[in-house]
């Protein structure tokens, strides 16, 4: 095609993104008293182990049935009224962020595979010239995780575990999962080339 053109280069979000018009709903994809609600408590640290306190986290996910609220998901599965599947959180002074959502259902993967419940996550921050992309999987979905084509593609010892959110033992409502993002270091989080 003669009309091809190059993508606009990415540039860092910088430290002053809080000037953006506030995002209604923030990182509460559902109400905390929703019957299916879970809370993901995350923390992000840099190569010196210091909290990344000026970071924007965005999440994108399917609903509890595994259906994306998007025109390209044409499968005959239910949408959930009011559930868009997107959230945006800003880290606090300790590098922590908080997402209230639901655990998504499984979604199809390449070549007839089934992807385990996962949340796509983008990290934007000063010092990141483009977003980092990772996924949140759930440590208590052992059977589904064992079949997940993306997790299975990560064979190096210890790396796959960096993508697992860990259910917190002490119950409560909604149930809490912990998820750490390490930008560097021996337990560096797996980031994806998308």
């Amino acid at each position, binding site marked *: 095609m003669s*009309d*091809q*053109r*190059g*993508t*606009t*280069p*990415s*540039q*860092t*979000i*910088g*430290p*002053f993104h809080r*000037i*953006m*018009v506030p995002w*209604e709903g923030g990182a509460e994809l559902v109400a905390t008293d929703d019957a299916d609600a879970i809370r993901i408590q995350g923390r992000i640290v*840099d*190569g010196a182990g*210091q909290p990344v306190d000026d970071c924007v986290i965005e999440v*994108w996910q*399917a609903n509890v049935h595994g259906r*994306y*609220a*998007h*025109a*390209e*998901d*044409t499968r005959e599965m239910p949408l959930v009224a009011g559930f868009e*599947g*997107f959230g945006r959180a800003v880290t606090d002074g300790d590098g922590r962020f908080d997402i209230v959502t639901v655990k998504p259902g499984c*979604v*199809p*993967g*390449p*070549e*007839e*595979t089934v*992807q385990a419940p*996962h949340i*796509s996550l*983008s990290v934007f921050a*000063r*010092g*990141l*010239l*483009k*977003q*980092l992309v990772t996924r949140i999987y759930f440590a208590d979905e052992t059977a589904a995780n064992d079949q997940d084509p993306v997790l299975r*593609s990560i064979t190096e010892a210890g790396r796959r575990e960096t993508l697992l959110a860990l259910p917190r033992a002490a119950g409560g409502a909604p149930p809490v999962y912990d998820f750490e993002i390490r*930008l*560097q270091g021996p337990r*560096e*989080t*797996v*980031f*994806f*080339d*998308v």
Partner: protein
Amino acid sequence: MDQPTGYNRDPAAEQPPYLYPDYRSTVLRAPKRPLVPLPHTLSEITGPVYGHEKVGPLDHDLTRQHDGEPLGERIIVHGQVMDTHGRPLPDALMEIWQANSAGRYRHDADNHPAPLDPNFSGGGRCTSDADGRYRFVTIKPAAYPWGNDPNAWRPAHIHFSLFGTAFVTRLITQMYFPGDPLLDCDPIFNSTADAAARQRLVCRLDLEKTEPEWALAYEFDIVLRGRDATPMEG
């Protein structure tokens, strides 16, 4: 049903790397391990779809968000949002934020001793129209020091954020002004290796869209990743 296609991947030289030591903050934040290639599945070719419902009536005009007018040079920033095949992207939500005409952000973390402007917040939103065209009214931001080295100054810029049609088309970038002498020494601008790709970040003075006796116009087209020719894996 035909398999949907994934999105094309940009040549490496046309996007910045994660590690770019001249921009010091990348050193402790860039991953050291190679990224894991991710096939484009339904999770990547879908994405948040937002349009007019997120935009207030004055969100596109940063000069009318307060009782008085902000100080500085009023400008129109307009352009077209499209994909790499030149197809316009209609109803695309766009967010911008910027420093004021003195080079100061309305932000707790900005310690630059330049005045805040009580009539300028610096944040805006709009959606592209049916042809992918958008228009903001704002004031021209100024350069400011940023501590990357003892005499580091950012060229004047406006931050842009767009979603596009899929998770993988998400783009946050910065728009610069033509002829700015600070561009040559700015590591953030220069982090993209390909010189022609860097020029996509520089807007164009547009005398045709300038409104006489009122505001200069600048044109800034934004290109998001387009669909690949081959079906996605799966």
